[in-house]
């Protein structure tokens, strides 16, 4: 009797427990873990990203988003190695230089439909110039969440100590052009401090020098990307000017010279405005942020971009696309814009930008940020960029010598990259 009762109890317990068990297995099966690779390890950035992930979880309780910070310098290499190893992330940040490779390869999940279907998303307010590099045949494959203009940070203290005119004075006099900028940098360079530094260039990342040569209307290749234009007059003139500034005027620190603007050791640096966070807080110097100087070809601006793409190969590509739509909706874009300037028109006004960039003055925001984002060209990129970058880097080493044959070297570089551009 006892035996039968025990058996019955056991069967009853099983009958209750089994559906519960199935339910929990089903829940576990529904659980979606999304991973996004990023190149920032900044605590403030990660705090904001995690808040956004928590916000997404409210409507998608089964979705958990994690962020994986990869080293900035080797980011694309690490990302493609993950993909090659069959461990692709669900979402990834993508550099503007690598955008063509990712967009054209078919590695990314198309985003347009998901973004447009997201309530209140308003994709139309993101300008076509901002999305150009991230689209193919009218379909957006990665969202450009960061559109950061290049400007010139200035150390007024060093410039005044060298007895030169500050950029602000030159702007007021209507003389802010490359000749004057280099003259000021040269005056500081001759005191033993650094003149003007193109940040992150280091005689390797030559694409950042577009912040100078764009002033001459120079470009490494034609608009369709098929023809090398490095040996043409604007580029030869621009590089001759830069070469002269390095080796004759000592206005730009030469190859192998390590000088940090943000440590107070140089007159000026060209970099993206997001680097304002590097300005020293303990021992501050009198600084300014001004637009890029006028070149022989007129006024110009340069922007760097970063995109978020969803990996086509991922199991949860649709959910990942929904997360990207949430992360970059107007509300979250406003939050992100304190670190990553947005290309949304509604966020491109002094009121919003002043709140998110408290270090910058109204004038700096108007002249550098808003005007830069609206008119700026994106730094050079191309399909197969890593290979082209390496060939040009290797070729340009012959330019960064005192006795360089600039025109001849540029001709040789075109010979090297010509076949790569046509691919």
């Amino acid at each position, binding site marked *: 009797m006892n035996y039968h009762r025990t058996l019955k109890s056991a069967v009853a317990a099983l009958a209750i427990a089994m559906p519960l068990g199935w339910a929990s297995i089903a829940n576990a099966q529904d659980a979606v873990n999304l991973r996004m690779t990023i190149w920032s390890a900044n605590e403030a950035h990660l705090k904001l990203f995690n808040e956004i992930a928590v916000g997404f979880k409210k409507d998608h309780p089964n979705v958990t988003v994690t962020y994986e910070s990869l080293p900035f310098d080797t980011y694309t290499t690490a990302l493609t190695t993950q993909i090659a190893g069959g461990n692709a992330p669900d979402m990834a940040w993508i550099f503007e230089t690598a955008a063509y490779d990712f967009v054209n390869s078919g590695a990314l999940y198309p985003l347009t439909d998901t973004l447009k279907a997201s309530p209140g998303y308003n994709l139309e307010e993101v300008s076509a110039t901002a999305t150009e590099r991230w689209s193919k045949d009218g379909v957006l494959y990665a969202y450009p969440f960061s559109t950061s203009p290049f400007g010139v940070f200035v150390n007024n203290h060093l410039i005044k100590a060298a007895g030169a005119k500050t950029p602000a004075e030159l702007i007021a006099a209507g003389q802010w052009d490359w000749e004057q900028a280099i003259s000021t940098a040269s005056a500081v360079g001759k005191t033993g401090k650094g003149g003007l530094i193109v940040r992150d260039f280091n005689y390797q990342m030559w694409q950042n020098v577009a912040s100078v040569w764009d002033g001459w209307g120079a470009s490494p290749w034609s608009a369709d990307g098929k023809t090398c234009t490095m040996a043409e007059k604007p580029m030869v003139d621009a590089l001759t000017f830069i070469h002269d500034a390095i080796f004759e005027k000592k206005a730009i620190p030469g*190859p*192998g010279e390590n000088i940090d603007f943000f440590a107070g050791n140089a007159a000026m640096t060209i970099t993206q405005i997001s680097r304002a966070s590097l300005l020293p807080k303990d021992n501050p110097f009198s600084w300014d942020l001004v637009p890029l100087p006028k070149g022989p070809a007129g006024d110009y601006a340069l922007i760097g971009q970063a995109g978020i793409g969803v990996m086509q190969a991922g199991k949860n590509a649709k959910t990942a696309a929904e997360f990207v739509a949430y992360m970059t909706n107007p509300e979250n874009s406003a939050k992100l814009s304190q670190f990553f300037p947005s290309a949304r028109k509604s966020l491109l006004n002094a009121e919003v930008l002043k709140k998110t960039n408290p270090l910058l003055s109204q004038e700096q925001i108007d002249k550098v940020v808003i005007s830069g984002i609206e008119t700026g060209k994106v730094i050079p990129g191309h399909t197969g960029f890593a290979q082209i970058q390496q060939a040009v880097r290797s070729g340009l080493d012959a330019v960064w010598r005192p006795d360089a044959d600039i025109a001849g070297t540029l001709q040789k570089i075109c010979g090297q990259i010509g076949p790569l551009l046509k691919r």
Partner: protein
Amino acid sequence: MAVAQDHARPESRSSSPFWTIARRDSLAGFLFIAPQVIGIIVFVLIPLGLVFWYSLHEWNVLANTFTYTGAQNYRMLIEDTNLVEVLGATAIFSAGLVVLNLSLALLLAVLLNQKLAGITIFRTLFFSPVVVSLVAWTIVWGFLLQKNGGINGMLQVFGIEGPNWLREETTAMISVIVVQVFKNVGLNMILFLAALQGVPNELYEAARIDGAPASRQFRRITLPLISPTILLTSIITIVGSLQVFAQIAVLTQGGPGMSTTVLVYYLYQQAFQFHLFGYGSTLSILLFVIVAVLTFAQWQMRKRIVFYES
């Protein structure tokens, strides 16, 4: 008698246990070597086979395509105009490294093979870079070799204008070689020191009695007796030199131009930076063949140049 034997055999077979002492010993032996053998199969032989397999394919990681292309990557290898420069840089690096490393290691070993007070401190000093992290070591040297870095700063004290070490083709290669030599010379030095201490003292005594000067003692006694160690260190150093990567990646990124782009760095660029995994695998096969040929040649040469007491 014969019949009795025939009957006895099956009986003795069925009674003898399967796990004989010999079998048990063999099993123990196999179990002892199993971790190493499995490691070699999983981490050496299978990847080697896969690399060869990949070298016959074009692998587009982003587009997720893996297409059989036969010998196309090998044709690309033959037509690659950069390869001559790359192999040249590799040969210069290896030759420079081997000559400088072995001669300096031997010199240090001879100097430190003395019974002096505090000699252990010097031995430790020269050996210590071997245990320092390679990347940390290289990064520090990178700072020292900058144009306005520590080395040129020191030269300036003596009124010498130092070169731009890492930005000029000749000095960049010399810098990379010297940084690598200083890092690893201690290891070869210890091996030479052990070999020198193994040379019987009686031989030197006999030579001294015969009136042989120190230089002849070194040539006729020391060198022949430590020649097996010279062979060992030269094989290790040559193979190691062909695998140099971190120093190039940190100090020069293969520049200026392509002057320090050695084979391994070129391979890394092709596979991981340009995403040409198929061609990168083909370059790996080339590296494997070069290492195998050089090691085989050195092994063959041992009969002529290495002296074995036995």
